[in-house]
């Protein structure tokens, strides 16, 4: 199967630089300190944030005196993929993803603001269709914003691939992952242009790396715009009663 048709369209009809449809919502749950839900195409992820709070249980032995302890757990609903999974978490792959998500988020969170405390981030993949890690990072970022945790900027993740050995593709779906192109996943801080985490599987010539990376970072920037819009809208909605986001006649934000 070819990743790109002669007309330059991908398997699901997208153009090479086109993201999947992204829908997101903040504040899904009341009980958690922060929560968010994101749909990237058919990948659906729910993230919740608890904290910062006093370290609980076993974590008490790992308190940092100058920064917060960030605790991440990735789990995937057993019915989320085409084949039923045996258990939702605890296998090696989900543990690895948990660690990667933590790495990507710690780069953005201002952990030094919360010494001696713990921050719990739980992500749950409800439906998996490629780019689970990216969707998880994006959902967790929104949940952190919802929880009011101090952050340097958004942590945004996006994947990219290379078709026909020359055309870079952005935001890889499950079908494209399976068809077997290379897969470059980047978690970045798009405003300052920093890369928090980068991972690649399969191979391509190192000459192609800059343009594939460029495509992935571009994707991050696009996603950042969407997330930022959501946050602004959410804040405007929740804060309407207190008059946030209202503009007076002179055009000055009150």
């Amino acid at each position, binding site marked *: 199967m070819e990743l790109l048709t002669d007309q330059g369209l991908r398997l699901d009809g997208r153009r090479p630089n086109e993201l999947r449809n992204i829908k997101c919502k903040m504040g899904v749950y009341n009980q958690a300190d922060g929560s968010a839900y994101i749909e990237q195409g058919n990948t659906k992820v729910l993230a919740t944030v608890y904290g910062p709070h006093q370290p*609980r*249980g*076993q974590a*008490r032995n790992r308190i940092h005196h100058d920064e917060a302890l960030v605790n991440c757990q990735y789990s995937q609903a057993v019915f989320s993929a085409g084949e039923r999974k045996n258990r939702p978490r605890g296998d090696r792959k989900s543990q690895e993803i948990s660690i990667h998500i933590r790495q990507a988020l710690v780069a953005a969170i201002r952990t030094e603001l919360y010494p001696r405390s713990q921050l719990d981030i739980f992500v749950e993949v409800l439906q998996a269709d490629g780019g689970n890690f990216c969707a998880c990072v994006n959902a967790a970022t929104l949940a952190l914003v919802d929880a009011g945790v101090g952050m340097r900027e958004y942590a945004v993740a996006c994947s990219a691939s290379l078709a026909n050995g020359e055309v870079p593709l952005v935001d890889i779906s499950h079908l494209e992952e399976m068809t077997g192109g290379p897969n470059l996943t980047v978690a970045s801080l798009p405003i300052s242009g920093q890369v928090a985490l980068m991972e690649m599987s399969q191979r391509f010539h190192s000459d192609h790396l800059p343009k594939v990376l460029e495509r992935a970072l571009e994707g991050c920037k696009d996603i950042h715009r969407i997330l930022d819009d959501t946050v602004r809208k959410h804040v405007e909605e929740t804060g309407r009663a207190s008059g946030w986001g209202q503009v007076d006649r002179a055009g000055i934000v009150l």
Partner: protein
Amino acid sequence: MPTDNRRIQGPEVSTPYCLFRCSTENQGKIRSSSPDFPPVRKDGRALLEHRKIYVKTGVVSQAKGSAYIELNNTKVICSVFDPREIPNRVEYSQHGELYCVLKFAPFSCAMRRAHQQDSEEKELSLNLKRALEPAVCRHEFPNFQVDIYVLILESDGGTLAASITCAGLALADAHVPMYDLVTAASLGVVRGVLVKDPTEEEEKVCREELEGINQNHGLITVSLMGAHTQITQMWQTGSMTTTCVSESLTHLIQSCEEIYPIAQRCLVKSVVDTISKKKISEQ
């Protein structure tokens, strides 16, 4: 999966030979006896007759308290150990906890049981815990847990009920502070007929055999604190109307109350025995 070298590993999948042997014989037996199943029981008991009970405390010398119960072919042994601090717990707990483990011995049933606890055993353990919790003065040993191990030596119906009664006696024998003794009884319903203390074979019939739609069938186990008439656990499966459940409930409470003095006598006897032994040793 790490392999377990210490135990004999059977083949992963096996078919019990009984299935082949009984395929004609056994089915015929049930069918021929089915018209008269309710009135006549194989062991000659009346429908609402409980099996004879034998109980004894202090059977395991290593344990703080122990008890043994025998209902014909159902044999259960239980040991209770000294309270110890709840392991792997950081938060202080106001109430003490019961840690119940129920195991079928590998040779206890028609099919060989595995050494690891399976889901049925876990379910029974939880029911056992729920049945005992209300009777124990848990505020007397905060942040401690009492370990209760129940081993079913032979299973022939009414295992949960026997385990609860046995564990209640073992707790009393271990001098764990309790409000009351717990006794339990089981009852089966088949085609709308109530059968007290069913055996394994009768339990199977109660679970499966149906004649037409909307027939009552199922199993109920109830545990009771006799002196306070408080039901500590009730566990029912099958399908029955509310009137049928209420009717069964009255019968079950009656059975529990019948078992209560037997358990009491057993405890009194163990106290008398200890005192007389002490006197002899003093002399």
